[in-house]
Structure formats: C-alpha cells, structure tokens
C-alpha cells in the first residue's frame, strides 16, 4: 500500500509524519491508556502494552467518556502523546480534545482505514487536504 493516499471527511491540525499503530479497535484516553507510562493498558485492547508516544494511531472509533477532551492536552503537556489520531468514525470528545490540545486528527473514510493501513507503516498526514499517505 506504499504511496496510497486516503481522503478523510473531517480533518484538523498540522502536517505530521510518523510511524503508525493500526488496529480495528476503539480509543479512550481514560479506558485504554496508562498515561503515565505512555502505553495501552487495557488488557482487552488490541494494542495492549504498546507505546503510543510519537506514533500516529489508526483506530476504528472513539469509545467511552468525556475525559479524553482534557486528557490529550494533559498528555501533550508531559510530551507523552500520539503524533496524530486517525479514525474510521470519531465522537465529539476526541475532536474537542484534539482541538484543545492541538493534535492532528482525521476521521471518516470510504474504506475501513484500520484494514487499509498496516501497523508499523510510516504515514504522512496533511489536514489541509484531509489526506493520509502511506510512505512505507
């Protein structure tokens, strides 16, 4: 899938280029993460144990509560945060949290983005054009 470009319906933030973690699973900063250690901590999560620091997260949808709206800002303040988050679908909380924290976000694709992009791929996100490109 090298070079493939996917276009989102929703986008915000700055251009980002980084390695990704991709999984057909949800995301909640409160439910899924050990934010002090910078890794996924919920045992049932498909990315359990993996570090999200500096990674682009490619996930199915936002889950759970409203805490993520504050938590992304708090995570960024300690320099332990994802470089960007890409969703199939997103709820307002993650979008609000990304806006408050200044974290890049894309959501809404014509394909299942978690199946289209393999974990470990290097991605470039261009929010101005609402695109995510697989670099390698």
């Amino acid at each position, binding site marked *: 899938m090298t070079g493939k470009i996917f276009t989102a319906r929703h986008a915000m933030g700055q251009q980002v280029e980084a390695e990704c973690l991709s999984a057909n699973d949800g995301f909640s900063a409160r439910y899924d993460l050990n934010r002090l250690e910078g890794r996924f901590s919920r045992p049932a999560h498909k990315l359990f144990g993996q570090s999200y620091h500096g990674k682009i997260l490619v996930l199915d949808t936002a889950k*759970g509560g409203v805490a993520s709206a504050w938590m992304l*800002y708090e995570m960024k303040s300690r320099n332990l945060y994802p470089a960007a988050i890409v969703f199939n679908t997103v709820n307002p909380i993650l979008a609000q949290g990304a806006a408050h924290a200044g974290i890049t976000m894309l959501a809404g694709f014509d394909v299942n983005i978690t199946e289209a992009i393999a974990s470990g791929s290097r991605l470039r996100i261009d929010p101005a054009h609402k695109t995510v490109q697989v670099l390698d």
Partner: protein
Amino acid sequence: MKLNAEEQAMLAGELGPVRQAAIAHQIKVGEFFGAADMVPVSQSHIMADTESLGEAGVEWLESLTKNGGKERVVRIPTITDPRGTDFNKAKQLGQTDQMISLERRAIAAFVKMGVSMTDTCINYQTIMAPGFGEHVAFGDTGVVIYSNSICGARSNFEGGPSALAAGQTGRTPRYGFHLDQHRQPGRRFRINWRPQTLNEWGALGGFIGKHSGNYWEVPVLEGVEGNPGSDSLKHFGAAMASFGSTALFHMVGITPEAIRAQDLNMAHLPVRTIERAEVMALQGSYRVTDEVDVVVFSAPQLSLLEIRDLAALCEDRKFKIPLLAVTSPQVKPDADRMGYTETIESAGGTVFAGMCFYQSYAREIAEVNGWKRLATNSAKMVNILGGYGYTPMLASMEECVAAAETGRLA
C-alpha cells in the same frame, strides 16, 4: 460556519480574550463536523476531575481567571460533574495532598468563572432536568444520554473545554444531536424479557452499546412494557454510553421521541432480538473470581432511593471488606437526615459525596489500599476499571452487599 453579529464580535475579541478563545475553539470543532452555525444553549455541565485535567489542565483554567471579572464569568447556568475526591474522606481513600491541592485549585478557578459547583453526574435527577427539545451542552456521557433519550433534550458529548466554552459563549456548534436528522435510529433491538435489577439494566445497556458501534448510531429498543423508572434507565443509559459511546437511544412506548413506533423511521431496520442469556453472559464474563477486595457503588452517583435500598440491605450487617457508596452533594444531606448514611456506615460502609470512584485516581488508590477485585452493580464501572488495573465484577446490589460481609461473591 455562519456567525451572527454577537459571535463575530466574540471572535474579534470585542467581548474579551476568554470568550474569543472559547468561540475559536468551538468554531474549530464545529467546522470539523460541518456545523452550519451555532445554537444557543440554556445550561452547561462541565466534566473536569483533576485526574483528567492534570497539572496542565488546572494551570490552563487558572490562566483564564487572570482576566477581569466580567470577561471571565460564564453567561449561562454552568454546573459541574463529580470531583476527584470527597474532601472529608480523602485520607480514608489514600489520596495524596497533591491530588487534593489540585482539586482545590480547580474548584477555585471554576468559582472565579461563576461556575456552580454541583459536583454531580445525576443533575437530571437532582438539579434541573432539561425539557423536551431544549438545547444544552452537557459533559458527562451518562448525563447526555439520559437528557437526550429520557428528557428529549438535545446535546452532544461536550468535553470539559467545550462545555466551559459553551458556558462562556452561551452557545455551541449546531451539529450531531442538535439536528433532527441525527436523531433517527440506525439499529433496532427487541427484548422479550425484562431486566429485574440495576445491574441487569446496565448489562442490557452495555450490550446494546457494544452492538451499536459508535457515537452516531442511535439504537431503538422495543419490548419494554411499562416505564422502568429513573434509576433503571440511568444505569441502562450510562452503560450504553460507556460501552458504545452512544449519546441517544429510543425505547418504544417509553421515551418521548418514540411513544409510538411510527414516530420513528425504523420499519426498514432489521430487528436484533436480544436474549436474556446473552446479556447475562456479558455480565458473567467479568466474574473471573469469587474473592472480593472492595465493593463500590458509583458511576453513576446513587440517587436517594438507591441509597435507601442500600441502607435496607446493610441493616444489621457487619462488613469484612470496604463498601463504598458514592452519591451527590444534593442527596447526601437527605441520606444523613433520613438515617440511611448511619445505617450504611454502622455496617462498616462509607458514604461519599460529590465524587466519582473512577474519577478519583482509581489506580493510585487501588495500590494504596490493596484493592484489585472489585464488585459493583454498575455496568459502566466494570467497563472502565479494567484499564485501571482492577478486576471488576458485575453483580446485583444484594450480591455486592453480601460480598462485603463475606469477602466473596456468591
């Protein structure tokens, strides 16, 4: 987004930097979701426990209070979700001075902004339930789903920064559940049985949430005969919101937008019948041990009637392990006055007010107290606490109270 004259003035800074930043944030979110304009809201409800805020979030709140009085004060009734502690019992939980200090600082900042510290996630039961069609900006998933579904009000999930912004501007972007087109069902479920206890209603809600998929899918449930009552619907909705990020459900014959099936555009939807065994299997999936370290009733805060029921179960018992019951600051005085608190605490339990267990540095207090195996009747809480290192188990209030006496779930 189309802005009216006042909104343009806010964005230009004519009403001060606080409202300028607030509306700029709202426009960023609104444009992400394609909102055409803003909608005035009558109330705002802010979730902001300091575990979520952290030092950085509290500093951000404090920075807003550096502005002059008129510029920083909210424009509409703005209330709060639970705190991260009950100040009277923080040491009992094992919370640190730093945690408590952070909470006091956050409270001080909110008070300077004119926010009313109600510290509750059951404001629809105890403060002011919104009316049918009322646009609000609520910031607790259980509050939103109850307000949207049972009251027929209109709100998206408004995270802390956005709910505070709505308080400061008096409006919110008009997208999502403020719009008619998003309130129609996309998933249709039916039951031919009736949950009997709060945990069963919660498990059913969690099951539907899991199978609904995401925030934008609105489930409708058929087959419920007679109104289940506010506390059952509270647990049902809170669990659904937690498991599925669901913000609105319909219950045919019960909720105001679904009094009759033909009120909704649902005839074309395939019906998924949910068997009791499936819901009990979801509940049972958490039962991985019989040993219990702590029993917790929280998430949502208990109503006065739940406290009453709990007190009745606690009468003449002596607990072997901690039993924590969490309610709102509005309910606690009545619970005290009516003797419910004394009954629960005479058995060895503790009644907390104004906090929520999972928002109170749950991981840290687990370590301090040696709590891992937790029994609760809240399906919402079992969904959350796995990520905090607990082994949460879902059972009825009766089973949980019995476990507090024996240290084991029957």
